[in-house]
């Protein structure tokens, strides 16, 4: 690997290995972090990226190998130790305190105090506001973190890391919950940090993103480093090859089947926002059997809220929905599931899975009544359905009695999908179905979506990934600020038109709302 001038190596990992009880997460890794550059790290889930980063951030200690900072060997006894030496990290799982304000989160463990050791909230909020303004997210420092959407929380996490004034800043999937516009802002912040000579280590699953902002790339597979290059010498194909060992096509091909009759229609769905205004603003759409309708929108566009309304999770929502032309009058989730609606929620951990139950119990949770005679669960019938679903969706699990939390993200997502499918839905609502899962599992999920639509299921899926919505949808709906702002057939859809529609209503009016 040749190095460009001006990008000195600030941190060097030599022959690092990390062994957990029974598993080797990282094997003999050599990794260099360069100053004033974006050092990209990619690999499938479980490849060891996060472990490697935790070693750099002092959260974990390597089992073997050396860490060289500015050429001197160091060992971090804690993350505080690493922070003191100028290493900051944006964690993949949000490490925020929901019950504290944004400012208190940003200054957690290094609170600004006045002469009497009392926390100086004014000063904290003033400083926090400076960082937040850079992120242009409309977050006020005195807001409680739990009141923010997940994407905004991620921005707070980023603000917190930036405020550390670190020399090395690690970002573990910082964009996984951000909208396209927010990603742009983040990239501006990154460019600014680069100019100040900060070394950035950047982890992401989104390859086009990496190619855009990366300067150096390192690929991990099964705990080993399989490729290390300057970014300008590589392309997507190369990255994917290094990651999974062979060329892979991301999106399953459309098979050209014709959608059937209308299976689902929503009319004038409205949901009032707690803070006033409408989170979902008179949305009407219809879906045909065997059709995949992608709903594209930025964060806060109201996609998830629309799904929640359709599932009957908000009592105060208004509007009408129809399945097979017949009105759905049931207002609670339980009976809407029985009518043929099923939701795959965005937040797998909080809404998708009961993590302490087994894979089998999770799979059949929504469809238990199918296996019940009188009040007795027929174990044989249940087991058979579980085994079949595990096989159909290629869930990698040794024994369905295993706790679901022991699976990788992609396999957990398959369990959530399997749970929805076992209810025998006519309409499947998928909210960001590919969020936070690796390339291989993504391809599986997309293939499953194709297959289901071929079998006549109507699929509504929400995403903030432009490529995904373009590649998978038969039609594309665009939402912005709670309104439906565009509806395109695949043939006529262009990225430019979709992005334009997704920005409608985000003009001055929106800016006012932020004040």
């Amino acid at each position: 690997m040749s190095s460009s001038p001006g990008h000195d190596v600030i941190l060097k990992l030599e022959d690092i290995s990390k062994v957990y009880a029974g598993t080797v997460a990282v094997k003999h890794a050599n990794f260099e972090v360069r100053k004033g550059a974006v050092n990209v790290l990619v690999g499938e889930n479980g490849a060891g990226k996060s472990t490697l980063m935790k070693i750099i951030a002092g959260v974990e200690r390597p089992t073997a190998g050396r860490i060289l900072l500015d050429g001197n060997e160091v060992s971090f006894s804690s993350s505080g130790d690493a922070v003191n030496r100028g290493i900051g990290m944006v964690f993949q799982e949000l490490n925020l305190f929901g019950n504290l304000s944004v400012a208190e989160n940003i200054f957690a463990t290094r609170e600004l105090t006045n002469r009497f050791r009392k926390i100086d909230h004014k000063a904290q909020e003033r400083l926090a506001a400076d960082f937040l303004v850079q992120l242009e997210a409309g977050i006020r420092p005195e807001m409680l973190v739990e009141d923010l959407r997940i994407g905004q929380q991620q921005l707070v996490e980023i603000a917190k890391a930036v405020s550390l004034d670190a020399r090395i800043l690690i970002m573990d999937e910082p964009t996984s919950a951000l909208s396209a516009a927010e990603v742009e802002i983040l990239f501006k912040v990154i460019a600014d940090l680069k100019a100040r000579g900060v070394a950035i280590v950047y982890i992401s699953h989104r390859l086009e993103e990496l190619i855009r902002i990366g300067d150096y790339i390192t690929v991990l597979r099964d705990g080993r480093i399989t490729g290390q290059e300057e970014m300008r010498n590589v392309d997507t194909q190369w990255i994917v090859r290094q990651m999974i060992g062979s060329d892979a096509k991301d999106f399953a091909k459309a098979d050209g089947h014709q959608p059937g009759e209308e299976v689902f229609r929503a009319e004038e769905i409205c949901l009032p926002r707690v803070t006033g205004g409408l989170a979902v603003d008179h949305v009407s759409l219809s879906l045909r059997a065997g059709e995949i309708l992608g709903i594209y929108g930025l964060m806060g566009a109201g996609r998830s809220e629309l799904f929640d309304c359709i599932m009957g999770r908000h009592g105060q929502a208004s509007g009408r929905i129809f399945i097979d032309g017949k009105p759905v009058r049931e207002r609670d989730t339980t009976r809407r599931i029985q009518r043929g609606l099923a939701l795959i929620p965005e937040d797998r951990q909080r809404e998708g899975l009961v993590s302490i139950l087994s894979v089998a119990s999770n799979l059949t949770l929504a469809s238990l009544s199918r296996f019940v005679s009188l009040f007795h669960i027929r174990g044989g019938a249940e087991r058979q359905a579980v085994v079949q679903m595990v096989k159909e969706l290629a869930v990698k699990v040794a024994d369905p009695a295993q706790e679901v939390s022991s699976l990788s993200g992609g396999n957990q997502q398959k369990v959530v999908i399997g749970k929805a499918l076992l209810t025998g839905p006519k309409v499947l609502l998928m909210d960001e179905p590919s969020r936070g899962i690796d390339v291989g599992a993504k391809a599986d999920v997309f293939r499953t979506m194709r297959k289901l639509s071929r079998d006549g299921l109507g699929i509504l899926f929400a995403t903030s990934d432009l490529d995904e919505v373009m590649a998978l949808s038969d039609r594309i709906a665009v939402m912005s600020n709670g309104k439906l702002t565009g509806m395109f057939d695949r043939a006529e859809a262009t990225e430019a038109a979709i992005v334009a529609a997704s920005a409608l209503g985000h003009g001055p009016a929106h800016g006012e709302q932020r004040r």
Partner: protein
Amino acid sequence: MTDIPAKAAAPSASGGSLLLTLMKLRTFIALIAVLVFFSIAAPNFLSAANLILMAKHVALNAFLAMGMTFVIITGGIDLSVGSIVGLCGMVAGYLVLNGIDLQIGYTVYFNVFEIALITLLVGIAIGAVNGLLITRLNVAPFIATLGTLYVSRGLALLSSDGRTFPNLVGKPELGTTGFGYLGAGKLLGLPVSIWILLVVALGAAYLARYTPLGRHIFAVGGNERASRISGVRVNMVKMFVYMFSGFCAAIVGLIISSELMASHPATGESFELNAIAAAVLGGTSMSGGRGTIGGTIVGAFVIGILSDGLVMMGVSSFWQMVIKGLVIIVAVVVDQAQRRLQSRVTLMQMAKVG
């Protein structure tokens, strides 16, 4: 204790798994340990009469602990059970002695069977109040049941002005005799209360393992939001567990007043703590989602035998409290160690699978 973790441990044959199995069986081991210890240390401990007497003592706590187990599995707590015991005892006593005065010159007396039924309904009703407070009015379970704890106890005291209803023999001409059967009666050589315990315990264990309601109880405790989205009627599940807990408490109220042939309004004070202790000792997780009826019953036996055995040995009741507390703490510490070991064993299995 549970079949699910047992299955998970089966494939591994490493040293960790032996320790894990031992830890899983800890409540059983504790039970055997106290049995062995007291049969050596306390004379007459193993006599049939003593064992039956102890079983009757344990049964009371076991009923409450079963109801408590379901409540705790859903992530809640029921502090009101002790007071429900007291109130239900008073209701039964009042009905036996006074019947219901219809205010028009007539008084309706019920037979013993009807009295038992009414008393059970009172217990279930208080459980329903708990459930409604928690599901409809969003009161935290701790607070809601703390409130009903005081209200029920107050009502029990009001019902007799704090006095005891003595001598619940009933009058043959009113058809109110036979109340003592629950507490003193025997069937095939075993006390009736033990048979009732057996029936309720088997029913509850069946419910937990083989019915959708049972599965939903665990799901709600594991992740309420995810359960709701999966179509589980979370509010109904919660209503059920508090009503079942009230039902169990009513049974205890009936049995105690039947055993004593008298109802005292202070009966059942601090019983809720013993019930929680038995559930926790039996492996029920206070954070919800984990627990078994079998484990809870064994836990109730460990606590009951421990206190009865210590009494027989003449240990001071002050020391008994210290010992009981230590046993509970040790149980939970071992429980945590087991969780850690368990996840390590699972990790190793995953590593093997690849």
